Protein backbone atom coordinates (compact mmCIF):
# COMPACT_ATOMS: atom_id res chain seq x y z
CA UNK A 1 0.00 0.00 0.00
CA UNK A 2 1.30 3.49 -0.98
CA UNK A 3 4.71 2.04 -1.85
CA UNK A 4 5.48 1.26 1.80
CA UNK A 5 7.53 -1.87 2.44
CA UNK A 6 6.39 -3.91 5.42
CA UNK A 7 8.14 -7.17 4.47
CA UNK A 8 10.34 -6.90 7.57
CA UNK A 9 7.24 -7.64 9.66
CA UNK A 10 7.51 -11.26 8.50
CA UNK A 11 10.79 -11.66 10.39
CA UNK A 12 10.05 -13.61 13.60
CA UNK A 13 12.78 -11.71 15.46
CA UNK A 14 11.10 -8.37 14.76
CA UNK A 15 7.68 -9.82 15.59
CA UNK A 16 8.86 -11.02 18.98
CA UNK A 17 10.61 -7.66 19.61
CA UNK A 18 7.41 -5.77 18.89
CA UNK A 19 5.35 -8.07 21.12
CA UNK A 20 7.89 -7.82 23.96
CA UNK A 21 8.01 -4.06 23.45
CA UNK A 22 4.23 -3.71 23.72
CA UNK A 23 4.12 -5.96 26.81
CA UNK A 24 6.87 -3.98 28.55
CA UNK A 25 5.21 -0.68 27.66
CA UNK A 26 1.89 -1.92 29.05
CA UNK A 27 3.53 -3.26 32.22
CA UNK A 28 5.39 -0.03 32.81
CA UNK A 29 2.28 2.09 32.15
CA UNK A 30 -0.02 -0.08 34.31
CA UNK A 31 2.36 -0.23 37.27
CA UNK A 32 3.32 3.43 37.28
CA UNK A 33 -0.28 4.59 36.73
CA UNK A 34 -1.52 2.52 39.69
CA UNK A 35 1.19 3.81 41.99
CA UNK A 36 0.65 7.37 40.73
CA UNK A 37 -3.08 7.20 41.55
CA UNK A 38 -2.27 5.83 44.99
CA UNK A 39 0.25 8.61 45.61
CA UNK A 40 -2.30 11.14 44.36
CA UNK A 41 -4.98 9.94 46.78
CA UNK A 42 -2.63 9.77 49.77
CA UNK A 43 -1.17 13.18 48.96
CA UNK A 44 -4.58 14.80 48.62
CA UNK A 45 -5.72 13.16 51.87
CA UNK A 46 -2.58 14.49 53.55
CA UNK A 47 -3.29 18.00 52.27
CA UNK A 48 -6.91 17.85 53.44
CA UNK A 49 -5.76 17.17 57.02
CA UNK A 50 -4.37 20.73 57.15
CA UNK A 51 -1.30 19.82 59.21
CA UNK A 52 1.37 22.47 58.65
CA UNK A 53 4.48 20.29 58.29
CA UNK A 54 2.66 17.64 56.25
CA UNK A 55 1.39 20.31 53.84
CA UNK A 56 4.92 21.65 53.40
CA UNK A 57 6.28 18.15 52.78
CA UNK A 58 3.67 17.30 50.18
CA UNK A 59 4.03 20.67 48.46
CA UNK A 60 7.78 20.10 48.26
CA UNK A 61 7.24 16.65 46.78
CA UNK A 62 4.84 18.04 44.18
CA UNK A 63 7.17 20.90 43.22
CA UNK A 64 10.20 18.63 42.85
CA UNK A 65 8.59 15.84 40.85
CA UNK A 66 6.15 17.89 38.82
CA UNK A 67 8.71 20.50 37.80
CA UNK A 68 11.54 18.22 36.65
CA UNK A 69 11.54 16.29 33.37
CA UNK A 70 10.80 12.59 33.89
CA UNK A 71 13.73 11.82 31.58
CA UNK A 72 16.09 13.55 33.98
CA UNK A 73 14.54 11.69 36.93
CA UNK A 74 15.08 8.36 35.16
CA UNK A 75 18.70 9.13 34.28
CA UNK A 76 19.27 10.31 37.84
CA UNK A 77 17.80 7.14 39.31
CA UNK A 78 19.65 4.92 36.87
CA UNK A 79 23.12 6.45 36.97
CA UNK A 80 23.53 8.28 40.26
CA UNK A 81 21.54 6.50 42.97
CA UNK A 82 24.09 3.66 43.03
CA UNK A 83 26.94 6.09 43.67
CA UNK A 84 24.91 7.46 46.58
CA UNK A 85 25.01 4.00 48.15
CA UNK A 86 22.03 2.14 46.69
CA UNK A 87 24.14 -0.89 45.85
CA UNK A 88 23.91 -4.60 46.23
CA UNK A 89 26.30 -7.51 45.65
CA UNK A 90 25.73 -9.72 42.64
CA UNK A 91 25.41 -13.29 44.02
CA UNK A 92 27.01 -14.79 40.88
CA UNK A 93 30.03 -12.57 40.28
CA UNK A 94 30.46 -11.13 43.77
CA UNK A 95 30.74 -7.65 42.27
CA UNK A 96 28.99 -4.55 43.55
CA UNK A 97 26.09 -3.54 41.32
CA UNK A 98 23.26 -1.00 41.47
CA UNK A 99 20.26 -2.10 43.52
CA UNK A 100 17.59 -0.79 41.17
CA UNK A 101 17.13 -2.33 37.73
CA UNK A 102 16.41 -0.14 34.71
CA UNK A 103 12.74 -1.14 34.84
CA UNK A 104 12.53 -0.27 38.54
CA UNK A 105 14.16 3.12 37.94
CA UNK A 106 11.74 3.93 35.12
CA UNK A 107 8.76 2.72 37.13
CA UNK A 108 9.70 4.71 40.22
CA UNK A 109 10.34 7.96 38.41
CA UNK A 110 7.19 7.67 36.31
CA UNK A 111 5.14 6.88 39.44
CA UNK A 112 6.53 9.88 41.29
CA UNK A 113 6.07 12.18 38.29
CA UNK A 114 2.49 10.97 37.71
CA UNK A 115 1.85 10.98 41.45
CA UNK A 116 2.84 14.63 41.79
CA UNK A 117 0.42 15.55 39.00
CA UNK A 118 -2.30 13.32 40.48
CA UNK A 119 -2.01 14.98 43.92
CA UNK A 120 -2.82 18.30 42.29
CA UNK A 121 -5.72 16.77 40.36
CA UNK A 122 -7.24 15.16 43.45
CA UNK A 123 -6.64 18.30 45.50
CA UNK A 124 -8.51 20.38 42.95
CA UNK A 125 -11.36 17.84 43.16
CA UNK A 126 -11.50 18.10 46.94
CA UNK A 127 -11.35 21.89 46.88
CA UNK A 128 -14.37 22.21 44.62
CA UNK A 129 -16.41 20.43 47.29
CA UNK A 130 -19.27 22.77 48.34
CA UNK A 131 -18.77 23.65 51.99
CA UNK A 132 -22.45 22.95 52.62
CA UNK A 133 -21.93 19.25 51.90
CA UNK A 134 -19.09 18.78 54.39
CA UNK A 135 -21.03 20.80 56.96
CA UNK A 136 -24.06 18.62 56.38
CA UNK A 137 -21.86 15.59 56.97
CA UNK A 138 -20.56 17.06 60.19
CA UNK A 139 -24.03 17.85 61.48
CA UNK A 140 -25.01 14.26 60.78
CA UNK A 141 -22.18 13.11 63.04
CA UNK A 142 -19.67 11.85 60.44
CA UNK A 143 -16.11 11.73 61.76
CA UNK A 144 -13.25 13.43 59.81
CA UNK A 145 -12.22 10.08 58.26
CA UNK A 146 -15.79 9.05 57.43
CA UNK A 147 -16.44 12.44 55.81
CA UNK A 148 -13.30 12.06 53.71
CA UNK A 149 -13.94 8.47 52.66
CA UNK A 150 -17.73 8.42 52.31
CA UNK A 151 -18.51 11.97 51.14
CA UNK A 152 -15.47 13.82 49.81
CA UNK A 153 -13.72 11.03 47.90
CA UNK A 154 -16.80 9.84 46.02
CA UNK A 155 -17.61 13.35 44.84
CA UNK A 156 -14.05 14.62 44.33
CA UNK A 157 -12.94 11.57 42.36
CA UNK A 158 -15.76 12.16 39.90
CA UNK A 159 -14.90 15.82 39.55
CA UNK A 160 -11.22 15.16 38.86
CA UNK A 161 -11.67 12.22 36.48
CA UNK A 162 -11.18 14.28 33.28
CA UNK A 163 -7.87 15.72 34.47
CA UNK A 164 -6.84 12.27 35.75
CA UNK A 165 -7.46 10.92 32.24
CA UNK A 166 -5.09 13.56 30.91
CA UNK A 167 -2.43 12.62 33.41
CA UNK A 168 -2.71 8.89 32.70
CA UNK A 169 -2.55 9.28 28.91
CA UNK A 170 0.49 11.54 29.30
CA UNK A 171 2.11 9.05 31.63
CA UNK A 172 1.48 6.27 29.11
CA UNK A 173 3.28 8.21 26.37
CA UNK A 174 6.12 9.17 28.70
CA UNK A 175 6.98 5.47 29.12
CA UNK A 176 8.68 5.79 25.72
CA UNK A 177 11.48 7.77 27.40
CA UNK A 178 12.47 4.67 29.38
CA UNK A 179 14.26 3.42 26.25
CA UNK A 180 17.07 5.83 27.16
CA UNK A 181 17.88 3.82 30.27
CA UNK A 182 17.63 0.54 28.32
CA UNK A 183 14.12 -0.53 29.32
CA UNK A 184 13.18 -2.65 26.28
CA UNK A 185 9.79 -1.08 25.57
CA UNK A 186 8.18 -0.22 22.25
CA UNK A 187 10.42 2.74 21.28
CA UNK A 188 13.58 0.80 22.21
CA UNK A 189 12.80 -1.98 19.77
CA UNK A 190 11.41 0.41 17.15
CA UNK A 191 14.79 2.14 16.99
CA UNK A 192 16.60 -1.15 16.58
CA UNK A 193 14.24 -2.34 13.86
CA UNK A 194 14.55 0.77 11.70
CA UNK A 195 18.29 0.81 12.14
CA UNK A 196 18.42 -2.79 10.91
CA UNK A 197 15.99 -2.45 8.04
CA UNK A 198 16.25 1.29 7.19
CA UNK A 199 12.47 1.27 6.85
CA UNK A 200 12.32 4.28 9.18
CA UNK A 201 9.06 5.65 7.85
CA UNK A 202 7.28 2.30 7.88
CA UNK A 203 8.43 1.47 11.42
CA UNK A 204 7.46 4.91 12.71
CA UNK A 205 4.01 4.72 11.13
CA UNK A 206 3.43 1.31 12.72
CA UNK A 207 4.65 2.48 16.14
CA UNK A 208 2.49 5.59 15.86
CA UNK A 209 -0.56 3.47 15.13
CA UNK A 210 0.22 1.11 18.03
CA UNK A 211 0.47 4.08 20.42
CA UNK A 212 -2.74 5.64 19.06
CA UNK A 213 -4.60 2.34 19.54
CA UNK A 214 -3.25 1.68 23.04
CA UNK A 215 -3.80 5.21 24.32
CA UNK A 216 -7.26 5.33 22.69
CA UNK A 217 -8.24 2.17 24.56
CA UNK A 218 -7.11 3.83 27.79
CA UNK A 219 -8.97 7.08 27.15
CA UNK A 220 -12.06 5.18 25.99
CA UNK A 221 -12.00 3.17 29.22
CA UNK A 222 -11.67 6.36 31.23
CA UNK A 223 -14.57 8.02 29.42
CA UNK A 224 -16.73 4.92 30.06
CA UNK A 225 -15.78 5.11 33.72
CA UNK A 226 -16.68 8.79 33.74
CA UNK A 227 -20.06 8.06 32.20
CA UNK A 228 -20.69 5.23 34.67
CA UNK A 229 -19.85 7.35 37.68
CA UNK A 230 -21.57 10.48 36.51
CA UNK A 231 -23.60 12.36 39.14
CA UNK A 232 -26.83 14.13 38.30
CA UNK A 233 -25.98 17.78 37.94
CA UNK A 234 -22.22 17.17 37.51
CA UNK A 235 -20.34 16.72 34.23
CA UNK A 236 -21.94 15.78 30.95
CA UNK A 237 -25.42 14.28 30.80
CA UNK A 238 -25.89 10.87 29.21
Amino acid at each position, binding site marked *: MFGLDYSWLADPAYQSWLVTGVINTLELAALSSSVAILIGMLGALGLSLRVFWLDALIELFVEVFRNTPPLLQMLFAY*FTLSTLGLETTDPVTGLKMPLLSAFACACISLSLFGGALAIEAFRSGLETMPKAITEAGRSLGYSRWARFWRIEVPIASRVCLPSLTNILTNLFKTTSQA*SVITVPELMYYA*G*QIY*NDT*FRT*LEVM*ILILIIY*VVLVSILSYGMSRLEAYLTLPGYGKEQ
Partner: protein
Amino acid sequence: MNKFGKLAVSAIALASAVASNTVFADTLDDVIARDKLIVGVKNDYPPYGYLNDAGETVGFEVELAKYVASELLGSPDKIELVPVVAANRIQFLEAGRVDVIFATLGVTDQRDEVIDFTVHYVNAAGPSVLMPKAATVDNWEQLKGQSICGIQGSYYNKKMTEEFGINLVNFKNQPDAYRALKDNRCIGFVFDDMTLQKKLEEADWSDYKIAVTPYEYLPMAGGLREDDAAFAEAVNKAIVKAEGEGKLIEWETVFGMPHSEYIAERAKAAAAQN
Protein backbone atom coordinates in the same frame (compact mmCIF):
# COMPACT_ATOMS: atom_id res chain seq x y z
CA MET B 1 -15.26 5.12 9.81
CA ASN B 2 -14.61 6.47 13.26
CA LYS B 3 -12.40 9.41 14.19
CA PHE B 4 -9.26 7.36 14.76
CA GLY B 5 -9.66 5.34 11.58
CA LYS B 6 -9.78 8.52 9.53
CA LEU B 7 -6.81 9.90 11.40
CA ALA B 8 -4.72 6.79 10.73
CA VAL B 9 -5.54 6.76 7.02
CA SER B 10 -4.67 10.42 6.56
CA ALA B 11 -1.40 9.91 8.48
CA ILE B 12 -0.43 7.05 6.16
CA ALA B 13 -1.42 9.01 3.07
CA LEU B 14 0.66 11.99 4.17
CA ALA B 15 3.65 9.81 5.01
CA SER B 16 3.56 7.99 1.67
CA ALA B 17 3.33 11.29 -0.19
CA VAL B 18 6.57 12.29 1.53
CA ALA B 19 8.16 8.91 0.78
CA SER B 20 7.43 8.93 -2.94
CA ASN B 21 8.82 12.44 -3.28
CA THR B 22 12.50 11.35 -3.18
CA VAL B 23 14.28 12.63 -6.27
CA PHE B 24 17.51 11.16 -7.57
CA ALA B 25 19.40 14.21 -8.74
CA ASP B 26 22.82 14.13 -10.29
CA THR B 27 24.99 14.83 -7.26
CA LEU B 28 28.16 15.50 -9.26
CA ASP B 29 26.57 18.45 -11.07
CA ASP B 30 25.26 19.80 -7.76
CA VAL B 31 28.67 19.53 -6.10
CA ILE B 32 30.44 21.30 -8.95
CA ALA B 33 27.76 24.01 -9.16
CA ARG B 34 27.97 24.54 -5.39
CA ASP B 35 31.78 24.33 -5.48
CA LYS B 36 31.66 22.47 -2.18
CA LEU B 37 31.44 18.82 -1.16
CA ILE B 38 29.18 18.09 1.82
CA VAL B 39 30.35 14.98 3.66
CA GLY B 40 28.87 13.11 6.61
CA VAL B 41 31.66 12.04 8.97
CA LYS B 42 31.93 10.78 12.53
CA ASN B 43 33.32 13.09 15.17
CA ASP B 44 33.35 10.70 18.11
CA TYR B 45 35.09 7.75 16.57
CA PRO B 46 38.87 7.71 16.74
CA PRO B 47 40.81 7.02 14.59
CA TYR B 48 38.32 7.41 11.73
CA GLY B 49 36.70 10.71 12.64
CA TYR B 50 37.06 12.61 15.93
CA LEU B 51 37.65 16.02 17.46
CA ASN B 52 41.28 16.85 18.23
CA ASP B 53 42.41 19.02 21.15
CA ALA B 54 41.92 22.14 19.02
CA GLY B 55 38.29 21.15 18.40
CA GLU B 56 38.84 20.31 14.71
CA THR B 57 37.33 17.24 13.12
CA VAL B 58 40.21 15.00 12.05
CA GLY B 59 40.76 11.33 11.33
CA PHE B 60 41.44 8.69 8.71
CA GLU B 61 38.13 9.11 6.93
CA VAL B 62 38.18 12.90 7.26
CA GLU B 63 41.51 12.90 5.37
CA LEU B 64 39.96 10.67 2.75
CA ALA B 65 36.98 13.03 2.42
CA LYS B 66 39.32 16.01 1.98
CA TYR B 67 41.30 14.12 -0.64
CA VAL B 68 38.10 13.41 -2.57
CA ALA B 69 37.10 17.08 -2.34
CA SER B 70 40.46 18.18 -3.71
CA GLU B 71 40.17 15.70 -6.59
CA LEU B 72 36.65 16.86 -7.47
CA LEU B 73 37.00 20.59 -6.85
CA GLY B 74 40.73 21.27 -6.78
CA SER B 75 41.06 22.10 -3.07
CA PRO B 76 40.78 20.02 0.13
CA ASP B 77 39.14 23.05 1.79
CA LYS B 78 36.09 23.05 -0.49
CA ILE B 79 34.35 20.78 1.93
CA GLU B 80 31.69 20.91 4.63
CA LEU B 81 31.94 18.25 7.31
CA VAL B 82 28.60 17.26 8.82
CA PRO B 83 28.81 15.17 11.98
CA VAL B 84 26.66 12.03 11.77
CA VAL B 85 26.10 9.00 14.00
CA ALA B 86 25.34 5.40 13.11
CA ALA B 87 21.64 5.90 13.76
CA ASN B 88 21.17 8.81 11.32
CA ARG B 89 23.90 8.66 8.66
CA ILE B 90 21.83 6.70 6.08
CA GLN B 91 18.84 8.98 6.70
CA PHE B 92 21.06 12.07 6.21
CA LEU B 93 22.28 10.67 2.91
CA GLU B 94 18.83 9.70 1.69
CA ALA B 95 17.36 13.05 2.66
CA GLY B 96 20.02 14.82 0.59
CA ARG B 97 21.57 16.62 3.56
CA VAL B 98 25.00 15.24 2.62
CA ASP B 99 26.49 14.20 -0.73
CA VAL B 100 28.43 11.23 0.59
CA ILE B 101 29.16 9.64 3.95
CA PHE B 102 32.57 8.49 5.14
CA ALA B 103 31.46 7.43 8.57
CA THR B 104 32.74 3.96 9.56
CA LEU B 105 30.08 2.48 7.31
CA GLY B 106 30.32 -1.32 7.19
CA VAL B 107 29.26 -2.97 3.96
CA THR B 108 26.15 -5.09 4.61
CA ASP B 109 23.49 -6.53 2.29
CA GLN B 110 20.69 -4.68 4.05
CA ARG B 111 22.41 -1.32 3.61
CA ASP B 112 23.13 -2.20 -0.03
CA GLU B 113 19.40 -2.36 -0.63
CA VAL B 114 18.90 1.31 0.25
CA ILE B 115 22.20 2.97 -0.70
CA ASP B 116 25.25 2.37 -2.92
CA PHE B 117 28.78 1.85 -1.65
CA THR B 118 32.05 3.29 -2.89
CA VAL B 119 35.04 0.96 -3.29
CA HIS B 120 35.81 -0.80 0.01
CA TYR B 121 38.85 1.02 1.37
CA VAL B 122 39.22 -0.57 4.83
CA ASN B 123 38.65 -4.06 6.17
CA ALA B 124 37.60 -3.38 9.72
CA ALA B 125 37.29 -5.82 12.58
CA GLY B 126 33.70 -6.34 13.67
CA PRO B 127 32.56 -6.13 17.28
CA SER B 128 34.53 -7.45 20.24
CA VAL B 129 33.69 -7.50 23.95
CA LEU B 130 35.35 -5.35 26.61
CA MET B 131 35.33 -6.96 30.06
CA PRO B 132 37.11 -6.61 33.41
CA LYS B 133 40.54 -8.30 33.48
CA ALA B 134 39.24 -10.89 35.95
CA ALA B 135 36.68 -12.23 33.46
CA THR B 136 37.17 -15.84 32.38
CA VAL B 137 34.98 -15.66 29.27
CA ASP B 138 36.86 -15.92 25.98
CA ASN B 139 34.36 -16.81 23.26
CA TRP B 140 30.97 -15.72 22.01
CA GLU B 141 29.16 -18.96 22.97
CA GLN B 142 29.99 -18.45 26.65
CA LEU B 143 28.06 -15.17 26.64
CA LYS B 144 24.71 -16.95 26.22
CA GLY B 145 22.11 -15.53 28.64
CA GLN B 146 24.55 -12.93 30.01
CA SER B 147 23.80 -9.21 30.24
CA ILE B 148 26.09 -7.34 27.89
CA CYS B 149 25.99 -3.58 27.32
CA GLY B 150 25.68 -2.39 23.73
CA ILE B 151 24.59 0.52 21.60
CA GLN B 152 21.07 0.92 20.22
CA GLY B 153 20.98 0.54 16.47
CA SER B 154 24.25 -1.39 16.00
CA TYR B 155 24.08 -3.65 12.96
CA TYR B 156 25.11 -6.78 14.89
CA ASN B 157 22.49 -6.48 17.67
CA LYS B 158 20.11 -8.90 15.97
CA LYS B 159 22.83 -11.50 15.49
CA MET B 160 23.90 -11.10 19.14
CA THR B 161 20.41 -11.83 20.46
CA GLU B 162 19.35 -14.45 17.93
CA GLU B 163 22.57 -16.38 17.32
CA PHE B 164 24.55 -15.98 20.54
CA GLY B 165 21.52 -15.62 22.86
CA ILE B 166 23.08 -12.59 24.55
CA ASN B 167 20.86 -10.42 26.73
CA LEU B 168 21.75 -7.04 25.27
CA VAL B 169 21.35 -3.90 27.39
CA ASN B 170 21.48 -1.20 24.74
CA PHE B 171 22.24 2.47 25.36
CA LYS B 172 21.80 5.51 23.14
CA ASN B 173 25.46 6.49 23.29
CA GLN B 174 28.91 5.23 24.25
CA PRO B 175 29.52 7.24 27.46
CA ASP B 176 26.35 5.79 29.03
CA ALA B 177 27.41 2.28 28.09
CA TYR B 178 30.92 2.72 29.51
CA ARG B 179 29.42 4.10 32.70
CA ALA B 180 27.04 1.14 33.00
CA LEU B 181 29.92 -1.29 32.50
CA LYS B 182 31.83 0.39 35.33
CA ASP B 183 28.68 0.17 37.48
CA ASN B 184 28.55 -3.58 36.68
CA ARG B 185 25.08 -3.28 35.20
CA CYS B 186 26.43 -5.66 32.58
CA ILE B 187 29.44 -7.96 32.51
CA GLY B 188 30.86 -6.57 29.27
CA PHE B 189 30.45 -4.03 26.51
CA VAL B 190 30.12 -5.19 22.93
CA PHE B 191 31.27 -2.62 20.40
CA ASP B 192 33.48 -2.00 17.42
CA ASP B 193 36.90 -3.58 18.11
CA MET B 194 39.02 -0.61 16.99
CA THR B 195 37.20 1.78 19.37
CA LEU B 196 37.48 -0.61 22.32
CA GLN B 197 41.23 -1.10 21.63
CA LYS B 198 41.64 2.69 21.75
CA LYS B 199 39.63 2.85 24.99
CA LEU B 200 42.02 0.40 26.65
CA GLU B 201 44.86 2.90 26.13
CA GLU B 202 43.15 5.25 28.61
CA ALA B 203 44.37 5.06 32.21
CA ASP B 204 40.84 4.59 33.62
CA TRP B 205 40.48 1.35 31.72
CA SER B 206 43.70 -0.44 32.68
CA ASP B 207 41.70 -3.06 34.63
CA TYR B 208 39.84 -4.08 31.50
CA LYS B 209 40.67 -6.23 28.47
CA ILE B 210 39.24 -7.38 25.15
CA ALA B 211 37.84 -10.69 26.40
CA VAL B 212 36.15 -11.87 23.22
CA THR B 213 37.70 -11.07 19.83
CA PRO B 214 35.76 -10.24 16.64
CA TYR B 215 34.01 -13.06 14.83
CA GLU B 216 34.23 -11.30 11.48
CA TYR B 217 35.94 -8.64 9.45
CA LEU B 218 33.74 -6.26 7.57
CA PRO B 219 34.78 -4.11 4.64
CA MET B 220 34.14 -0.41 5.19
CA ALA B 221 33.14 1.96 2.40
CA GLY B 222 31.70 5.37 1.71
CA GLY B 223 27.96 5.62 1.24
CA LEU B 224 26.30 7.15 -1.82
CA ARG B 225 22.69 7.59 -2.91
CA GLU B 226 21.45 4.86 -5.23
CA ASP B 227 21.82 5.20 -9.01
CA ASP B 228 24.09 8.22 -8.81
CA ALA B 229 26.51 6.78 -11.39
CA ALA B 230 28.54 9.84 -12.47
CA PHE B 231 29.18 10.94 -8.88
CA ALA B 232 30.01 7.36 -7.79
CA GLU B 233 32.56 7.04 -10.57
CA ALA B 234 34.24 10.33 -9.67
CA VAL B 235 34.41 9.47 -5.96
CA ASN B 236 35.72 5.96 -6.63
CA LYS B 237 38.38 7.31 -8.98
CA ALA B 238 39.56 9.69 -6.25
CA ILE B 239 39.69 6.96 -3.62
CA VAL B 240 41.64 4.59 -5.86
CA LYS B 241 44.05 7.41 -6.70
CA ALA B 242 44.63 8.01 -2.98
CA GLU B 243 45.24 4.29 -2.50
CA GLY B 244 47.70 4.19 -5.40
CA GLU B 245 49.66 7.12 -3.95
CA GLY B 246 49.99 5.29 -0.64
CA LYS B 247 47.93 7.98 1.13
CA LEU B 248 45.85 5.52 3.16
CA ILE B 249 49.03 3.87 4.53
CA GLU B 250 50.28 7.34 5.44
CA TRP B 251 47.03 8.13 7.31
CA GLU B 252 47.26 4.82 9.16
CA THR B 253 50.59 6.04 10.55
CA VAL B 254 49.33 9.56 11.28
CA PHE B 255 46.32 8.32 13.26
CA GLY B 256 48.12 5.54 15.13
CA MET B 257 46.39 2.61 13.45
CA PRO B 258 48.09 -0.76 13.03
CA HIS B 259 49.10 -1.22 9.37
CA SER B 260 46.65 -3.60 7.78
CA GLU B 261 47.42 -6.04 4.98
CA TYR B 262 44.15 -5.15 3.29
CA ILE B 263 45.11 -1.51 2.77
CA ALA B 264 48.66 -2.42 1.70
CA GLU B 265 47.38 -4.84 -0.93
CA ARG B 266 44.81 -2.40 -2.28
CA ALA B 267 47.57 0.22 -2.51
CA LYS B 268 49.74 -2.16 -4.54
CA ALA B 269 46.86 -3.09 -6.87
CA ALA B 270 45.89 0.56 -7.34
CA ALA B 271 49.50 1.63 -8.01
CA ALA B 272 49.79 -1.10 -10.65
CA GLN B 273 46.58 0.13 -12.27
CA ASN B 274 47.55 3.82 -12.35
